[in-house]
């Protein structure tokens, strides 16, 4: 099926070339980081994880979200999802690759990373995180490729792939649960030490991932006239609304426990995120309030059915939802976990330009993988007349 990549419009190759240029440019910044060390980032002794690990966390969620298509399609035989399921699976592949890269760029000694396998350590959550992510990557590549091949040949997928699909559904929940356990089991990090962390991760993933998928499919529809299916879009939007409601609800549960108990160490990270320190708003506070605004605005636009089916309002609402969840998980989670620090003082963290450049490079790799895989899928769908109703 790889030959499908050879027959595309010129603008597709221009897009690939653009991504390659971004990857090269950002790759040079990464080389500089390799040479000078992680000193080029804004991380420090007290805030020892930053943008890289938070992006890793966010994209584990994006990867896991493919299950919101796979589960209805295979457990409930919801046929309308069948046409776009491959795009969810391939997006998961791109997202897991991004996760792996975000971990690699965060390592101080990346050439030693195989030590995690050479010295397997069952008491470390990171060991399991590596296992579940590699497994999930393999599952989605095998399932996606096999089912697409079957579609191309106009046959049913081979029987052996069905158990893999059922495993992948459970597996999707496991990857984000294990990622939450990286945080939720650490004594002394009060913002993270909460049993609802994994549930929050999953709910945030199940609204943000499908939103990103839907936004990308809307772009694809405009570019290629591929039609994801009106009914499918409607159902997926409903799933997004429920997941976002649950996500906001879970965050409010956290707020209640923290502020009704009035235990200072639990209050402080949230107060810092939203109100800053010593009467001074932190830069992240502005972002957090924007996230709050966008979260509620997106819900206002998505909950009434007549608005969420409106073709102009839907993308606007989805963009706001993605921005809100990204700020919560991609900025607030890490900064809140490390602020105040272990001495109950505040050490500021802000990603540096070079740190952001390296992260953009990883984004570009994800976009490249996604563009290649989706192009193959789109070509196959076009060939077998599964492009529109």
């Amino acid at each position: 099926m790889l030959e499908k990549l050879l027959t595309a419009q010129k603008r597709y190759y221009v897009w690939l070339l653009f991504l390659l240029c971004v990857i090269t440019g950002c790759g040079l910044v990464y080389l500089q980081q390799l040479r000078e060390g992680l000193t080029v980032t804004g991380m420090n002794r007290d805030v020892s994880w930053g943008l890289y690990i938070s992006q890793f966390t966010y994209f584990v969620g994006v990867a896991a979200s493919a299950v919101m298509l796979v589960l209805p399609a295979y457990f409930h035989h919801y046929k309308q999802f069948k046409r776009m399921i491959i795009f969810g699976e391939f997006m998961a592949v791109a997202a897991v690759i991004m996760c792996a890269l975000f971990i690699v760029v965060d390592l101080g000694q990346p050439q030693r990373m195989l030590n995690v396998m050479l010295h397997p350590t069952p008491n470390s959550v990171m060991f399991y995180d590596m296992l579940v992510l590699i497994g999930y990557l393999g599952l989605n590549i095998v399932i996606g490729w096999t089912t697409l091949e079957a579609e191309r040949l106009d046959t049913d997928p081979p029987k052996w792939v069905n158990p893999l699909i059922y495993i992948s559904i459970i597996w999707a929940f496991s990857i984000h649960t294990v990622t939450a356990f990286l945080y939720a089991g650490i004594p002394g990090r009060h913002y993270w030490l909460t049993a609802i962390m994994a549930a929050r991760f999953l709910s945030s993933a199940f609204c943000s991932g499908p939103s990103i998928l839907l936004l990308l499919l809307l772009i694809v529809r405009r570019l290629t006239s591929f039609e994801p299916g009106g009914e499918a879009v409607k159902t997926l939007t409903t799933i997004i609304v429920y997941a976002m409601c649950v996500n906001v609800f879970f965050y409010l549960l956290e707020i209640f426990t923290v502020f009704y108990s009035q235990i200072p160490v639990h209050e402080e990270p949230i107060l810092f995120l939203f109100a800053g320190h010593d009467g001074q708003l932190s830069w992240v506070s502005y972002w957090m309030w924007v996230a709050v605004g966008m979260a509620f605005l997106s819900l206002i636009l998505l909950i009434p059915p007549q608005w969420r089916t409106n073709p102009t309002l839907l993308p606007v609402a989805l963009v706001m939802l993605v921005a809100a969840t990204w700020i919560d998980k991609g900025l607030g989670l890490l900064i809140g976990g490390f602020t105040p620090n272990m001495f109950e003082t505040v050490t500021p963290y802000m990603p540096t330009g070079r740190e952001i450049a390296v992260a953009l490079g990883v984004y570009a790799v994800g976009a490249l993988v996604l563009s290649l895989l989706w192009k193959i899928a789109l070509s196959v769908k076009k060939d077998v007349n599964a492009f529109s109703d």
Partner: protein
Amino acid sequence: MNKSRRSFLKTAGISAFALSSGIAEPANEAYAKLAPGRYTRGETALTAKRWAMVVLTREFKTPQDYEPLIKACHSAHNVPDIAGRQNIKWLWLDAYAHVFPDDMNSHLDEYTRAASYPLLCNHCSNPPCVRVCPTQATYKMEDGIVAMDYHRCIGCRFCMAGCPYGARSFNFMDPRPHLANPAPNPTFPTRMSGVVEKCTFCAERLAVGRFPACVEASDGRLLFGDLENPSSDVRKALANNYSIRRKPSIGTQPGVYYII
């Protein structure tokens, strides 16, 4: 072909010479000691079931009283002097409110509040850093010391997120340009960029029969001994004084005690 044969013979010849002349002896010895199951302590080594430290804080009148201890530690372990927040600290000072935030009250006596307290790795009995490390680069020794293998560490910094005491430092940059040249202590390894490090309770000194550098420099104001031995200095001091530890509620069981 010819060249590789020649270089093989050369290497073989040098190896044979080294083995027969005893040059390779130290290397063989190091290997024997590190090999699993064949490790034996040297005859002069200080041993304990569980090493612990007691800080007699009232014996230190000013922050300057701690300076020789910090200097001894940092030069014994080639700890670089790096400005800013990407610095390396093995032994350092902070105020009561930051060292014992759980114990703080607004009416604490002025002396206790204003004093400086030394901070270092607590060598916990139940160390979260060891629990989270994905490569066992940080591990607990049988005598209670939480040790680090700088050559196995991948620099993921999970241990820094895990440590509730902020005891760990990451080499954000190559530390060697920030050391005196030659390095203060040629018998202790310098580190490279991208690995985590921290206080080792001077395991390398205990192995040759010497107390930790800070203890030696403290004129008896830091006590160091076996917590499992009722007649040790640390046990006697703890039996006769009121002592506290940092963040006791999270169950890590620190091995550093403070007599306030």
